C-alpha cells in the first residue's frame, strides 16, 4: 500500500476549565484523547459517535480550525511532501489550505448571505490566485454544473435557494480549489429525507468522478454505512473501533459499536425494535470513568474493565479498544 494521504497520530485536544477571578485551571475536558487513524487516497473514512464524543473536534483539528493540544497530523501535500499540520502557524498553513476543504452541516449558515453565489463559490479561487473574473466565472459555472445547479442562478443571493440547493453550493465551494482531502461534517443531517438522498447521491457521484478522498463525520449510522469505505467509532474522545464498513456492521467487535448499530430505528415495522437498548448515558468527558470509559454502560463488563483501560489492538481486521474483543459474539445489522 502506498503512503496514506492523511495520517493522524496520537491526536489530543483538551479544553481547560477555568474558574474564579484569576481564571485558574481546575480541570480539562478531554474532547479528543489519543486518536490515531489513516486515510488512503480515494478513500472515504466515516467518523461516527454520539454528541460529545469528539468527532467534530477531531475534524476541526485536522482542518486546523483549531490547534490540537498534542499529536501529529501528517498530510501528504500535492508536491509529495509529508507535512505535519499540527504545529504550523497561520501563515505556514495558508499554502496548504486549498488542499483540504470542508463541507458544512448547516446549509443556512455556511454561505455568506451578503455575497452572491458567484462570490461565495469563487472566493477560494480569488484568494488562491485566480485574479481574472472571466476565468472565475467559467470555473464557478463548471462547479455549479458539477454539483447539479443551474449556472444562470450564479448571481443570485443564498436566500433564494432551498436547503438542498445551498448544500450543493457549499459542496461546489469546497471543491473549487480541487482539494486533495474533503472533510464533511454531518453534510446531510440538516436536510429533509427527500433531499438527503439527492445530496448523498451527489457525494457518491463526485467521489466516483473526481476520486475524492473524504473524512465523513456523522452520527447517522445508516448514512455512514451507505457512503463510507471504512468506519471509525468514537466514544468520549477515544477511538473504540475501526474497521472496513461491511465488517464493522456485520460483526462489530466493540460492545458500544454493536449497541450503536442496534439503536438505529429501522424503517420497517416488521423489524425487531431495539429492545436491547444501552443503559445509562454518555460519560462526561471532563470526568470520565475509570478503566474502560464504556464500562458503566457495558453489558459485558468484567472486574478488569473497571480497573484497567484497554489499549487499541488489532483483532481480525478490526482495530478495537476492548479487553474482550476476541471472545464476544456481537451482532450488527
Amino acid at each position, binding site marked *: 500500500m502506498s503512503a496514506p494521504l492523511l495520517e493522524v497520530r496520537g491526536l489530543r485536544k483538551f479544553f481547560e476549565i477555568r474558574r474564579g477571578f484569576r481564571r485558574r485551571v481546575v480541570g480539562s475536558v478531554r474532547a479528543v484523547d489519543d486518536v490515531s487513524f489513516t486515510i488512503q487516497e480515494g478513500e472515504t473514512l466515516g467518523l461516527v459517535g454520539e454528541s460529545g464524543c469528539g468527532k467534530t473536534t477531531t475534524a476541526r483539528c485536522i482542518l486546523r480550525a483549531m490547534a490540537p493540544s498534542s499529536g501529529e497530523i501528517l498530510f501528504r501535500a500535492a508536491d509529495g511532501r509529508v507535512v505535519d499540520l499540527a504545529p504550523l502557524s497561520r501563515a505556514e498553513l495558508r499554502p496548504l489550505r486549498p488542499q483540504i476543504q470542508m463541507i*458544512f452541516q448547516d446549509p443556512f449558515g455556511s454561505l455568506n448571505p451578503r455575497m452572491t453565489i458567484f462570490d461565495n463559490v469563487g472566493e477560494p479561487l480569488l*484568494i488562491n490566485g485566480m485574479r481574472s473574473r472571466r476565468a472565475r466565472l467559467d470555473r464557478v459555472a463548471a462547479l455549479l454544473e458539477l454539483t447539479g445547479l443551474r449556472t444562470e442562478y450564479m448571481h443570485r443571493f443564498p436566500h433564494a435557494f432551498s436547503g438542498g440547493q445551498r448544500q450543493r453550493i457549499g459542496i461546489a465551494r469546497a471543491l473549487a480549489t480541487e482539494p486533495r482531502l474533503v472533510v464533511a461534517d454531518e453534510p446531510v443531517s440538516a436536510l429533509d429525507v427527500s433531499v438527503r438522498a439527492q445530496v448523498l447521491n451527489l457525494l457518491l457521484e463526485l467521489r466516483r468522478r473526481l476520486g475524492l478522498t473524504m473524512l465523513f463525520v456523522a452520527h447517522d449510522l445508516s448514512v455512514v454505512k451507505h457512503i463510507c469505505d471504512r468506519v471509525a467509532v468514537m466514544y468520549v474522545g477515544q477511538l473504540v473501533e475501526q474497521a472496513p464498513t461491511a465488517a464493522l456492521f456485520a460483526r462489530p467487535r466493540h460492545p458500544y459499536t454493536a449497541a450503536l448499530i442496534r439503536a438505529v430505528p429501522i424503517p420497517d415495522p416488521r423489524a425487531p425494535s431495539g429492545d436491547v437498548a444501552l443503559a445509562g448515558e454518555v460519560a462526561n468527558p471532563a470526568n470520565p470513568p475509570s478503566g474502560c470509559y464504556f464500562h458503566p454502560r457495558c453489558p459485558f463488563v468484567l472486574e478488569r474493565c473497571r480497573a484497567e483501560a484497554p489499549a487499541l489492538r488489532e483483532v481480525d481486521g478490526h482495530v478495537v479498544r476492548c479487553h474482550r474483543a476476541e471472545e464476544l459474539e456481537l451482532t450488527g445489522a
Partner: protein
Amino acid sequence: MAEPVATPPAAGERIAVAANWRLVWWRFRKHRLAVASALILVGFYLVVLCPDFFSTQDPEATAARLAFIPVQRVRWLDGWTPRPWVPGIIGKRNPTTLRMEWRLDEGRKVPVRVLVAGYPYRLLGVVPLRVHLLGAAPDAGASLHLLGTDRLGRDQWSRLAHATQTSMTIGLTAVTLSVVFGVLFGGISGYVGGVPDLIIQRVIELLQSLPTIPIWLALTAALPRDWSPLRVFFAITVILSLVGWTTLGREVRGRFLSLREEDYVLAAELAGASRTRIIGRHMVPNFLSHIIATSTLAIPAMIINETALSFLGLGIRPPAISWGVLLQEAQNIQTLALAPWLLVPGLVVIVSVLAFNLVGDGLRDAADPYGQ
C-alpha cells in the same frame, strides 16, 4: 412555522438577486411610522443645511422694543381665498408695570409670502443670497414673528432654525465619533481577544460606571472661557462621544464574537483568506446595518445630553444657539407665565428624539432581512 424552503416563485427573480441593502429597504418601507419619522428627519436636516433660508429675521438682531411679542398664528384663508396672513400686532406700555403689552389686531392683515427677500446671508457659507422661504410681504410694513420673540426681541422662529443646525449637528458628529471609537475598539476587543480585549472591557466598564453629569460638568467647566463657539462646539462633541462609544463598542464586540463562530467565516478562513479580508468582506458587512440602527438610536441620547448641558449653561454658550440655549431662556417661571412660546424648542426636542427613535426601531427590525 417551519423555515421557508425556497423563494416564493411569485417574488421570483427580483428578490433572488436583491442585495442586502435592498432587502433592508423593502422591509423598512413597510414600517409606516418609521418612514414618516424619516421624512420628518429629512426636514430637520434640510434646516441644518441652511437655517438662514428658513429664517424670517436675523436671529442675532435684537430690538428691546420688540420683546416678548406673542405667536402670530398663520391664517390660511383670507375670506374664502387661500391667501395666508397673520394679524398685525399693537403694542401698548402698561402704565403700572411699565411693560410692553402686545395685542393681536385681527383687523390688520399682514400677508405672508413665500420666497421673499430679507436679510442677506451666505448659502452654505459661500453663495450670497437674500431670499428666504417665508416672510411678511415687503410692502406690509410689519415684521413676521411666527413663534414670537424673546426677552431681547429676537425672532424665536429664526433662532429655532439656527439652534436646530447646532443641536442636530452635534448629535450626528458625536455619534459618528462614537461609531469610529466603538467599531475600532469593539472590533479589536472582539476579533483579537486576549489581553487587548481584557483592557478595553475594563476601560468600558470604568467609563460606564462614572456618573456622567458631574464628569461632563467638570470637563466642560475646564474648557477655556475664551474659546470660540466653534471650538467649544467640537469640544462638547468629543466630550459627549467619550462616553457614548462604550455602548457601541460592546455591541460591536458582541457581533464580532458571534460572527466569528459563523460557518461562512470559518469557510473563508479555510480558504486561506487574510484577516483583513475576513473582517472586511465577511464580518463588517454582516453587522453594518445593525450598527447603523444602533447609532440612529444613539443620536437622540446625544441631543438630549447636549440640551441638558446647554440648559445648565455648561454646553454651548451664547452667542451660539442650540436647543438647550433656547430653553435656558425659559428657565424661570415668570418668563414662562408671560411668554409660554419660549417652550416651543422643548417640543422640537421631543419631536426629533421621537423621530430618531422610531427610525432607529424601524431600521433595527429591518436590519436582519433573513431573520423572521
